[in-house]
């Protein structure tokens, strides 16, 4: 079993460090990444350190609330377009503007190799209603009085049939014999044959007589 470590002290130290720097004006929370703190908390949480981590989480959450408060103030500032014009009136040098722009550039990605016709035909295919995936209803097991001499498997018949179905469905379509090809045990082949008969009767698998093929 994987052993989880307790990072509560280290995370708390990091939170305190951020708070001290914020209070001294050294940093602003809006520029500070808090995701790593929550990621660490999430990844190293376990039942043994739950109590300690809850108080660390409280401290981290307090920091997040402070960040939201800073964001609220910032949004109020953004709304004042006059502030931006005031900045322009200060006649900032081109280098200062370019510094502002740096870190904001985006490199768009575009490919034109997929033609529109191809896209249209794909759309048509998507529009075709997809049938519901095949489901097998489980049969209720009944309590009966008395004992049986026959050995009965603990697994339900339908469960075993489902297992068989899930095992072979990716193999389909294929020849009838191909389904039994890999099995050497005659009893197992007979058991699988019974499942197959039931699946054919339920319509989960279909059989084409002319080609001796099984398909979904």
């Amino acid at each position: 079993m994987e052993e989880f470590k307790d990072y509560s002290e280290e995370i708390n130290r990091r939170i305190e460090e951020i708070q001290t720097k914020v209070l001294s004006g050294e940093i602003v929370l809006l520029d500070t990444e808090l995701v790593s703190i929550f990621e660490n908390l999430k990844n190293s949480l376990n039942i043994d350190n739950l109590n300690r981590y809850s108080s660390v989480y409280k401290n981290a959450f307090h920091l997040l609330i402070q960040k939201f408060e800073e964001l609220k103030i910032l949004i109020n500032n953004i709304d004042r377009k006059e502030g931006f014009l005031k900045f322009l009136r200060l006649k900032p040098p081109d280098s200062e503007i370019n510094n502002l722009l740096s870190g904001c550039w985006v490199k768009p990605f575009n490919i034109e190799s997929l033609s529109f016709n191809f896209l249209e035909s794909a759309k048509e295919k998507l529009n075709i209603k997809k049938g519901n995936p095949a489901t097998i209803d489980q049969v209720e097991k009944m309590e009966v009085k008395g004992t049986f001499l026959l050995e009965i498997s603990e697994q339900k018949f339908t469960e075993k049939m489902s297992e068989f179905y899930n095992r072979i469905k990716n193999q389909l379509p294929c020849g009838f014999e191909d389904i039994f090809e890999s099995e050497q045990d005659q009893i197992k082949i007979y058991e699988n044959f019974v499942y197959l008969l039931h699946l054919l009767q339920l319509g989960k698998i279909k059989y084409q007589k002319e080609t001796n093929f099984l398909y979904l």
Partner: protein
Amino acid sequence: MNEFTILMHLLSDRSNKFQIGVSKREILNKLNLNGKNESLHFETLITQLSNYIEPLGLQIRFNPLSSHWYLAFQIEASDYVSANPFADKPRLAATLFYTLICCLERLGVAKIQRIKELRKKKRIIDDLKDLEKEGYLELDENLGIVKLTPLIGYQLDINKLIIKLALKLKK
């Protein structure tokens, strides 16, 4: 072929010089998504595709100037220089910045005279003409106005720029 392939095509398609990607409505129409949960389906698809393409170094972005969703490369700090289309033309970048702020002030259209007053540099008209040639704006000298095309919204994270500027002003 699945929804993601179609989305990849739509988000990376360039319909003209200024327009890349696709609007939310077009995505919904192309994928035949409608009904009361269409927005939920849309958000799920965008989020899932976003997670899917992240290891490829790509991301899905939104251009507020054209309301188009599009694909972009995730940029490392060292790549910002190569992504800057004005790396060797800082003067043009600054004029475009003035135009952007003036356009924000007046719902997308700015007066050339206003930019001239604020920029206080010679040959502003030449700068604006160069920017028009590059596809960033449309100039109407008769009316004395300038309008941004959506192009800069694809190449510049305008939200980030505004936050940077607001933080600068706050300081």
